[in-house]
């Protein structure tokens, strides 16, 4: 277990930033670490609840098997593509990944 005071280290913040493809400066990392730890401290309150012997809840409703038939709808690409900020022809542009 990590120390309860600071569950997330600066190294972990940098790793998260890398996974999320975010560029963070050293100052940003320190600040983000503070924010994230505050959030985690808040969530720690949940840990105080005794859940011994209680099976996990994956869904708040008791519904199962909500299914639809395999019938195609005509696609709605026109409106969707109009909302895309960067395009090349019909392709959606994204930054290079490596």
């Amino acid at each position, binding site marked *: 277990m990590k120390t309860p005071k600071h569950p997330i280290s600066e190294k972990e913040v940098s790793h998260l930033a890398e996974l999320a493809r975010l560029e963070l400066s050293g100052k940003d990392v320190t600040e983000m670490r503070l924010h994230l730890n505050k959030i985690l401290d808040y969530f720690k309150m949940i840990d105080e609840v005794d859940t011994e012997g209680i099976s996990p809840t994956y869904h708040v409703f008791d519904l199962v098997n909500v299914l639809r038939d395999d019938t195609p*709808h005509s696609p709605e690409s026109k409106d*969707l593509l109009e909302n895309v900020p960067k395009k090349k022809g019909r*392709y959606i*542009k994204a930054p290079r990944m490596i």
Partner: protein
Amino acid sequence: MSSESKKIKIGLEVHCQLTSLKTKLFCNSPSDYREKPPNTNICPVCIGTPGSLPVLNRNALNYATMVASSLNFEIMSHMIFFRKNYFYPDMSKNFQITQYDRAGGVPFAINGYILLNDGRKIRLGRMQLEEDPAKISYDGTIESSSETYVDYNRAGIALIEIVTEPDLESPSDAREFLNKLSSILEHLNVLDLGLEGSVRCDANISHRGGKRVEIKNISSFKEVERALNFEMTRQKSLASKGISVSQETRHWDDVRRITISLRLKEEEQDYRYFPETDLVPVTLSETFIEKINHDMPELPKEREIRFQQEYNHSSEIARVLVKDKYLADYSEKAAKESIAPREVGILLAVNLPPFLNEIGKDLKSLDVAPEHFAELADMISKGEVSRRSAKTIFLEMLKTGQKPRNIFDKKGLDVISDSKSIEDIVTKIFKDNPEAVKDAAKDTKAINFLLGKIMQETQGRVDPSIATKLVKQKLSVQ
């Protein structure tokens, strides 16, 4: 199996699209994305706009149950979907909806298996249902491109993932396994393997208990054996130089046909799997699974047995025929048209493959109808053509698409059956080869030389058994 190759351990992770579905896994966008302009078959769900909600395709559930059942899996009666989180533009939601067997997740099915021809059991650890990511293209190569271009037509297409234990002992085992799997999936009519990109494979391979290397990006089943052979040779060559293999992920470059080291940023824990609460759990009752099993199409194993009973094929021939659904269907059409279905089986399972190998084509691309094979089989079984002439007709038929009967008439390949003509030929050969006749009189093995001459003279149009009889008769009165 040599002891050397036993030291190889191979596991596969196979991804198959359920191409027979008309819509994607969680939305009503049409699934026929191939040949469509980029970003045509998209909707708010598969492009991940905020507020859109996924709903599971009923037929995907039916198909996945059929697949799991035919691969001897234990199907989970209660399952949920998970989010696999990662930041890459092939999933605009920044997660993929999949299933998971850890962290409280439940896959679709566990503990399946496929039997190889020699009876070895290849264990299938788990099967899961998930969505396919989008397709990304580049300006030039992945390294040189300044931007990436995303086409979400493929995003959200239903995939099943099948993960084997490392039970395969050679690249050729992997090929046999994938052939069996393909044939089963095709017989279920859930997948058209002929569609580009409908199946993909990742493989892991270790040599002599060394570190495990993962190979990603194998884009078709045909490439798997090639990629594994390359990697096996690479690992063996490192071992022979005393260099240890490092545990890593490598990328199969199907143009250069080599594996290259790939730096992956994500580790398993970085995906932060958690339940997809936009989807409710799925329960599959025993009645449901029984109904699916009851309505199941005929599987290759059953078909193999029926082929032996119905068409009198040997077990070996029947096995070759059912290896590929197209060939099995084709052979069945031909067998039904023929009075000699067993002969049809021999033509298609024994004589055809070497020809196809040589010209590098498949049966589908030949302009030859099943009826042609039936006609030739009938001619052989009636004794109208000798085996040797049949071979000539067979090759001509495959090359030109002409009917066997037409080729036969044109080439004059009918069997010389009247005994007077055969006797004349034998007499001529005896006269032309006095030395050989002397040898044959002393040593029966030398008869073959004379028979060879007779076959040469008649272009194989004499029944060898009749020729042998006549030669022996003639020798005995010399």
